[in-house]
């Protein structure tokens, strides 16, 4: 090897090493310097207009101790909040509040694993655009973080220890997902929320979370959280909410039914497959929307005490269709009264009639409550269960 070659090799090594090592670790941060924020709550003080952010952060050392002494499970459900820690900070804007975290935290908050954003009802009614903007602008805001509105202040909800999960926010996210999986309330990610916000006509929605009290085994009251409804937004501010029935009606209409149950007076049916379609029809200035629902179900509960016959099955199918229809209509009525297009009828019209849409769009608020909605439900009962006769006849 000649001297030149050797020199070259040294130079290559230096050229590679020097930038790498001098560059140091600008972005390197150890896990024990981070406070992993699992849930973030947003409240507005109605008097001052100040924003209060509530961080629910994970306390790793506690998780370590609970997992190593796994016997102490009975503490959960009403026990002390040891795996999470709540912090509040107040500022004039979301980022102002975020920046004040440094005043009371020992670790840098880390938002890339946040599971839910909770908006206090008061705050949501004031408009949450500043927060949405911050999340969308910031690379830490992932598109599939769940959004929810709390009946009370978000800071209260985030403090309630919830069931089996050691991290409350994860539990809450799972709860929302479960309720959506069983077609009770919608599961709304940040991306969906932002998309509805962007469409100008479609109203954003989010599930609502409330606290209820339960009597524990030792007679003490235990706080638990439950999903109670669907918040309806107009633009970025909340204007009303749908109850349980209306919420599932909404889900039927926007094709978000996965599994779940339909209860009719004589029986309960388990949904196997459901599909819906919003078909707009534009004639002159009249808009007619047809919601076509196609559903298949299994029978899982029959109170009739009769042997099943084809007639009864047909009756059940009809009853089911009626029930679904009434749910959807309830949601439609409510949305008309709120004048909020939660179903995305506007977008459906846009998709089909893009030229006419230009005129319709500015006056959608006036047009919307006058839309004629027709619900067509096709149901089919597949299975009747493991028994084919009633166990006890009338």
């Amino acid at each position, binding site marked *: *090897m000649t001297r030149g070659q050797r020199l070259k*090799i040294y130079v290559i090594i230096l050229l*590679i090493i020097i930038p*790498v*090592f001098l*560059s*140091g*670790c600008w*972005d*390197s*941060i*150890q*896990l*024990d310097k*981070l406070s*992993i924020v*699992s849930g973030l709550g947003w409240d507005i003080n109605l008097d001052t207009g100040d924003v209060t952010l509530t961080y629910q952060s*994970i306390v*790793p*050392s506690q*998780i*370590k101790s609970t*997992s190593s002494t796994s016997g102490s499970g009975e503490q959960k459900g009403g026990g002390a909040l040891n795996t999470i820690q709540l912090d509040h900070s107040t500022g004039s804007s979301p980022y102002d509040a975020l920046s004040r975290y440094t005043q009371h935290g020992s670790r840098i908050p*880390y938002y*890339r*694993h946040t*599971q839910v954003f909770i908006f206090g009802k008061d705050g949501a009614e004031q408009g949450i655009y500043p927060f949405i903007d911050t999340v969308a602008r910031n690379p*830490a805001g*992932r598109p599939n973080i769940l959004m929810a509105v709390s009946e009370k202040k978000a800071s209260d909800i985030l403090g309630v220890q919830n069931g089996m999960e050691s*991290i409350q926010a*994860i539990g809450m996210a799972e709860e929302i997902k479960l309720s959506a999986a069983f077609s009770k309330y919608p599961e709304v990610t940040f991306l969906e929320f932002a998309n509805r916000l962007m469409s100008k006509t479609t109203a954003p929605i989010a599930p609502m979370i409330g606290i209820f009290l339960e009597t524990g085994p030792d007679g003490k009251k235990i706080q638990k959280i439950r999903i109670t409804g669907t918040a309806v937004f107009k633009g970025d501010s909340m204007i009303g909410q749908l109850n349980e029935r209306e919420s599932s009606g909404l889900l039927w209409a926007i094709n978000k039914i996965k599994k779940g149950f339909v209860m009719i007076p004589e029986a309960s049916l388990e949904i196997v497959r459901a599909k819906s379609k919003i078909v707009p029809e534009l004639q002159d200035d009249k808009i007619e929307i047809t919601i076509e629902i196609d559903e298949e179900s299994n029978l899982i509960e029959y109170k009739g005490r009769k042997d099943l016959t084809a007639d009864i099955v047909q009756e059940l199918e009809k009853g089911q269709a009626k029930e679904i229809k009434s749910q959807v209509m309830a949601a439609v009525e409510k949305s008309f009264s709120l004048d909020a297009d939660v179903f995305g009828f506007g977008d459906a019209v846009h998709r089909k009639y893009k030229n006419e849409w230009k005129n319709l769009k500015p006056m959608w608020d006036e047009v919307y409550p006058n839309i004629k909605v027709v619900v067509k439900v096709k149901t089919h009962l597949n299975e009747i269960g493991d028994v084919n006769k009633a166990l006890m006849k009338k």
Partner: protein
Amino acid sequence: MLDLLLKKLHFQKMSNNNSKKASEQHDSPVYLSKNLEENLKILREVLGQSSDVIIRDMKIGTNLNVAAAVIYIDGLVDRDLVNHHILQPLMSDLQLIKDNVGQNHSNLIDFIKSSVLTVGQIIGTEDIDGVIANVLTGHTAILVEGVNQALLIDAKGWETRSLEEAKNELAIRGPRISFNETLRTNTALLRRIIRDPGLTFESLQVGERSKTDIAIVYIKGIIEDSLVEEIKQRLKRINTDVILDIGYIEQYIEDNPLSLFSTIGNSERPDVVAARVLEGRAAILVDGSPFALTAPMILIEGFQSVEDYYARPYFASFIRWIRFLAFVLSAFLPAIYVALMSFHQELLPTPLLITVAAAKEGIPLPVGVEAIFMIILFEILREAGLRMPRTLGQAVSIVGALVIGQSAVAAGLVGAPMVVVLATTAIASFVAPSQADLGALLRIILVSVASFMGLFGIVIISLEILSHLASLRSLGVPYLSPLAPLNIRGLKDTLVRAPLWTMDSRPEPLDSPNTRRQSPDQMPQPPKTKPNKGES
């Protein structure tokens, strides 16, 4: 051939300042004189007073009137052979012959050669340097008074290790045998597998003082000729004292000696070497080394195991992928872990992150330092386990298991996840043992870069490695072939191990003049069905 050796010998003598006299004497070939005493004097002078040099004076002939001498090196010759087939015929059998071969000395030596000695290979030489060189390699020389010619008898025989089972390249199916340290044995092992007349062992001697025998193995007609020439050129360029092992040769003839990657393969198994030679490669055998070098080598060879070809194709392909995966894991896993833990925490699924964060709590070292500490600890343990006498190995493993596995975690020096990562890495690195040292180097480089730049650093270094690999050639064959440059047919033995009957041609990058290695369409077919006995 001999000329070449002599030239080398002279060159060495000339450069040898210690024996100036000798160098003056041997400037030009020195021939034997007819005077035995004189010959022996020169020999004694050159070979010195070494105790293993045996010069046996004797009188031979019917009347015991001819002085002669047998010269050999004790330990290099088969004593039985020398005693019974050289000394005995010379000293006693020759007496019994009443013929009048008597006084004519030149007749005598021809007679000895043709009728007396009962050994196989005998050559005559008139050159004293030739005598010395051959005696040093284990020949036995006979000098007779009045004759300027010496007989060199091949009666080599020394203690060797017996043939043993392969220790490094294990296979469940397939032959067990491996090379040993004797060149002849090794060539015989190959010859027994390939009985093709084209199989050629070309001999060279390398090493100014060691004069180690080297054989280049190839099959005429299958190998591309320029390849052999190139290897010969590179071997001839070597000018060093001694070749102790084949590793010396490897380092002297590599294409890119500064690369992390070895561009010359090695194997201790005759079947592997035979297979590679039959693909159109050359092998190099060195006396004294139980390994053979094979060249050219491509990257993929490191991940092929001999057993791939003995087992059925599906599992072989699967295992080959496992080997790739294991290598990638062994090189990249700690680096990726470090990058994820200190830069990209968002890339871990949340539950995993929480678990890891809990384990990381209270550990004082940054992950990068932790990883480097553990890697070095592991390498120390591995080295200790290797070098330690067998009986102490157990102690090492106990201490290692305790130190790494238990105490470090319990003391809160390293996190449990890091131990899991390192253990996975360590096990993965044993899957492709030939690449283990490479994996260790890459691992430490990547971990250092990852702890400074995260995934970006890892990718940048990987790109540099890739571009380096793409630029490597082994004796003109691109190192990454058949992947890049792409050779679809070559992929049959790269990404999968296709059934043997589909691999009709030799690897294309080797440019073999005889590309076809079997007739196509050999897929086994069941016999055209005769009606089943039971049914008819």
